[in-house]
Structure formats: structure tokens, C-alpha cells
């Protein structure tokens, strides 16, 4: 019974943990503009994160080596440093976006401008990093994030033309009158939102924190293969709700209020409250994951003691890094910069940083020194290479598309 409980918790926290401010904003924006015509990009992204999270989980369970450690082992200090700078900058930007997201959620709930909340949020996040147990933190925010499912319920309640939604979902081209480059730009953004680098840094380092062993491998596999796709469904629900409520009115999503509108329309204030609660939990959870990931990446590159399993006094450099990153995030949001814009920029640069992160994972998952007898099978390798090909294309296309379409304008 206890085992079943832990197992269910794992799946649920994977679902809630998948969604962050990047997924929320990009899916709502895209849903309001293209309907479900870009669902395929989310699906490809979810397949990608599943394949690589499973590989990195397997490597951790057998060898105890988290992803950033692999990158340094496999590509050496020079190339790993290039990747470190890129991933670190992107993760810091993503952290900034989450802090902004949390502040915006509280702003909607209280109608007081979000800049008021930024510093208290920073302090609260730091206290959680400093004191709270790793798995309690993971579970609490993952589970609370599940309330985003209110968008799926709202969709069912609003009872849209399902046939029409279905037709949008299977069309692989932009709706009439929409330019192809902009459509592709949003495809890259959605793909990057599903595959953001911090997710594998955090997932694999979390595995070390929780002390996974080879016997945990099957549980982890189910967490990944159930949790992430269900998390992807939550993202798609946000897009579908936007497609039903915002698209017909021609709303161009610019603020978080617009994103929560479908839930409010279906269930009034209660719906709004549940949606905001879900967003709050998801962004707080993601902010913690990003902040810790900044520390994980740096500590693993240099071989510092890291993580919540060692006392902060033993991991002084790790804790100093996380605290500094939270401070930088807070200061950036405090300037009053639009958090939605920060989110979009962070996603574009995520796409660029992806290849150097995932290639070493694929190599290590084939190396018996790292995974013993559990080396990749044909399916994992086939999917891994296919996803890596998409990752390379997205990385190359991201910046030109951003410039060409002026950030999807």
C-alpha cells in the first residue's frame, strides 16, 4: 500500500512538475492564435523529454552520475564550459521568468502590482532551498500543480465543437492567413518549453538526491512515461481552452489574466481561484527546480559537493550559487520588465542550448561503464537519435526564426 502511494505520488509530481510558466504562456499564446494546430510540437517535445529523462534516470540509477557530470566526462572541460555558460544563462533566465510568473499570479489574486511581491518571493524560495526536505518539496508543489487540470475540466464544461478541435489537432499546417515562419517559430518555442534543459538537470540530480538504485529503475520509468505525457496533456488543455475561449474573440495573449479567463468563464471565481492556485504551485515548483539546477550545473562541472542531501555548510559554494541566482532573478523582475517577455526569450535560448545537453546523455546511456547491462535498446537509440535530430534543427532555426518573425509578432 505504502509502495503504491509513493508510486502514485511520483507520477503525480511528474505531471505537476512538467508544467511551468514557459508551458503556460506559450500554450495559451499559441492556443489563442493557432487553435490546436501546433499540438504536434508539444507531442514531439513530450516524446523527447520522456526519452532523455528515462535515459538520464537509468544512468543515475546505475552509476550515480547526474547529467552535468556526464557532460564534463564526455566532452571535456572546454566544450562543457560552453554548454555550462549557455545552459546556466538560460536556466537563470527561466528562473527569472518563474519568479515573475509567481508575482503575476499573486497580482491577479490581490490586484496589487506584482513588483511589490518580488522580494518576499525571493526570500521564501531561498528558505525552501535552505531548509525543506527534497522529496517533500518535490511532492508538495508537484501535487498542487495538478490543479491546473481545471483547464481540462473547463474545456469539458464549455463543451466546444470537439470535431473542430480534433481537425485542428491533426492539421500540421498554419490556419489560413497565418505566415509559415511565425507558425514554425511557435513550434520551436513549444518544443523548447517541453524540453527545457533544467528539466533533465533537475530530474537526474534529484535522482542522486533521492539515492536511486538499479531497483528503482522500473518505478522511475513509469513516472516518466506516465507523468510527463499527462503533464503534456495539461499543457494541451491550456492551449485548447484558449482555442475555445480566446481564439474566436481574436485575443492576442499578452497577460496572465487572459490565460486564466477560460477557467473563470466556466466556473466563475472558484475556477479562477483553482487555476491561479495551480499556476502558483507550478511556478513556485519550477522556480525551485531552476534555482537548484543553476547550482547543480555549476557544482557538477567543478566537482563541488552539492545538493540538499549534504548540510549547507558542506556545500557552501553550491548554496551560495543558488542564493545568488535567486537574488539575480529577483533583481531582474524588480526592474519591472515584463515577465511574459522574459519567458518567451528564455524559451528561444533554451532551444539553442539543447544539443550539447542531450548528446552526452545518449552516449552515456550506451556506455556499459555507466549503465552496465542496462544499455539502450534499439528503440531508445532510434528515438534518441530522431529526437536529437529535431533538437539540432530547432537549435539552428531558433534565432533566425526569432529575428525573422520579430518574436512571433
Amino acid at each position, binding site marked *: 500500500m505504502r509502495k503504491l502511494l509513493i508510486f502514485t505520488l511520483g507520477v503525480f509530481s511528474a505531471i505537476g512538475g512538467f508544467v511551468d510558466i514557459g508551458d503556460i504562456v506559450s500554450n495559451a499564446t499559441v492556443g489563442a492564435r493557432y487553435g490546436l494546430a501546433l499540438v504536434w510540437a508539444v507531442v514531439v517535445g513530450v516524446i523527447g523529454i520522456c526519452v532523455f529523462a528515462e535515459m538520464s534516470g537509468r544512468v543515475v540509477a546505475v552509476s550515480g552520475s547526474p547529467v552535468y*557530470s556526464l557532460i564534463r566526462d564526455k566532452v571535456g572541460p572546454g566544450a562543457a564550459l560552453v554548454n555550462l555558460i549557455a545552459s546556466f544563462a538560460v536556466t537563470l533566465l527561466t528562473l527569472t521568468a518563474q519568479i515573475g510568473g509567481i508575482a503575476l499570479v499573486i497580482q491577479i489574486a490581490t490586484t496589487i502590482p506584482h513588483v511589490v511581491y518580488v522580494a518576499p518571493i525571493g526570500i521564501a524560495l531561498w528558505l525552501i532551498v535552505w531548509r525543506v526536505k527534497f522529496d517533500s518539496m518535490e511532492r508538495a508543489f508537484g501535487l498542487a500543480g495538478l490543479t491546473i487540470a481545471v483547464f481540462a475540466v473547463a474545456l469539458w464544461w464549455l463543451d466546444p465543437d470537439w470535431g473542430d478541435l480534433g481537425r485542428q489537432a491533426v492539421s500540421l499546417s498554419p490556419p489560413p492567413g497565418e505566415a509559415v515562419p511565425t507558425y514554425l517559430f511557435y513550434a520551436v518555442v513549444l518544443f523548447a518549453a517541453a524540453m527545457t534543459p533544467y528539466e533533465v538537470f533537475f530530474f537526474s540530480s534529484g535522482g542522486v538526491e533521492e539515492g536511486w538504485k538499479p531497483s528503482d529503475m522500473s518505478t522511475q520509468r513509469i513516472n516518466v512515461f506516465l507523468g510527463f505525457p499527462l503533464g503534456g496533456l495539461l499543457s494541451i488543455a491550456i492551449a485548447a481552452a484558449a482555442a475555445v475561449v480566446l481564439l474566436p474573440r481574436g485575443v492576442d495573449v499578452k497577460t496572465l489574466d487572459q490565460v486564466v479567463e477560460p477557467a473563470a468563464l466556466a466556473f466563475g471565481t472558484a475556477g479562477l481561484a483553482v487555476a491561479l492556485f495551480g499556476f502558483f504551485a507550478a511556478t513556485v515548483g519550477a522556480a525551485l527546480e531552476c534555482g537548484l539546477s543553476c547550482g547543480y550545473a555549476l557544482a557538477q562541472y567543478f566537482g563541488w559537493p552539492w545538493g540538499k542531501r549534504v548540510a549547507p555548510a558542506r556545500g557552501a559554494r553550491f548554496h551560495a550559487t543558488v542564493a545568488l541566482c535567486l537574488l539575480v532573478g529577483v533583481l531582474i523582475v524588480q526592474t519591472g520588465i515584463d515577465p511574459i517577455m522574459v519567458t518567451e526569450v528564455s524559451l528561444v535560448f533554451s532551444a539553442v542550448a539543447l544539443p550539447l545537453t542531450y548528446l552526452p546523455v545518449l552516449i552515456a546511456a550506451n556506455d556499459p561503464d555507466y549503465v552496465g547491462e542496462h544499455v539502450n535498446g534499439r528503440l531508445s537509440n532510434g528515438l534518441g537519435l530522431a529526437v536529437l535530430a529535431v533538437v539540432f534543427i530547432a537549435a539552428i532555426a531558433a534565432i533566425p526564426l526569432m529575428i525573422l518573425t520579430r518574436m512571433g509578432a
Partner: protein
Amino acid sequence: MSTWQGREIVDLLTDIIDREIVDPEGVPLGRVDDLELRSRDDGRTEVVALLTGTVALEPRLPRWALTLIRASARLTGGPDDPRRIPIEAITKVDTVVSITAAAAAAAASPSEERLKRKIIGRIPGADHASE
């Protein structure tokens, strides 16, 4: 054929350099940033020590990265001399290099120590792992 740590062939870059160095509890204390070699009397060259620390890493980094690495080392009161771990202190080599407790204590990072003493260790709760 003679072996070392159970291996017949040890490719120094592929198998040892860049790996994490851990103490007997598995807590990392650095990475193998370089190796110290010595010419023996018979003319052969042997590996005598692991070197760790940003100063040891510098020769292996591209030039543009040096400013950045040195600035970050100064941030924690460094740069410090590379720490040297004699090869006899290695107890096991797999995806990480494990060393004896005594060697780990001798090779503890000075910058970690300074940061702990001056800032992090003074914050309440610093001595408790959150587990």
C-alpha cells in the same frame, strides 16, 4: 597481463581525466583536472598524482575562458594552488574516482572552506542537511 584497478587498458583522458573525485562517503571534492606524470629510471612514464582545482584546469581551457575562470576563483578568495592527490590514495575507479578518507581530508577545497567560514556557515541551520 598486468592490470590497474581491474583494467588492462586505461586511456587516461577517456577513463580518468575529468571524472569526479569522491571521498569514501561519495561526497565530491573536485574533478580530475589534470594528472601529474613522472619519468622513471627505466625511461618509462608513470602517473603519480591526480590534480584538482581551477589552476590545474586552466591549461586545458580555451584562452577566452581564462578571464572568466580566474574571476570566479577570485570571488571565493582564490586562486589556490592545485590540490594533489597521490595515485596510491585511489581506492576505486568507475564513473567516479574514489579516494581514501585521509587523502580526501588533505585535498579539501580551500575556497569551499573559506566560503563556509565567512558566510554560509554563519547562517542558522547551515549544519543540517535537509533530509
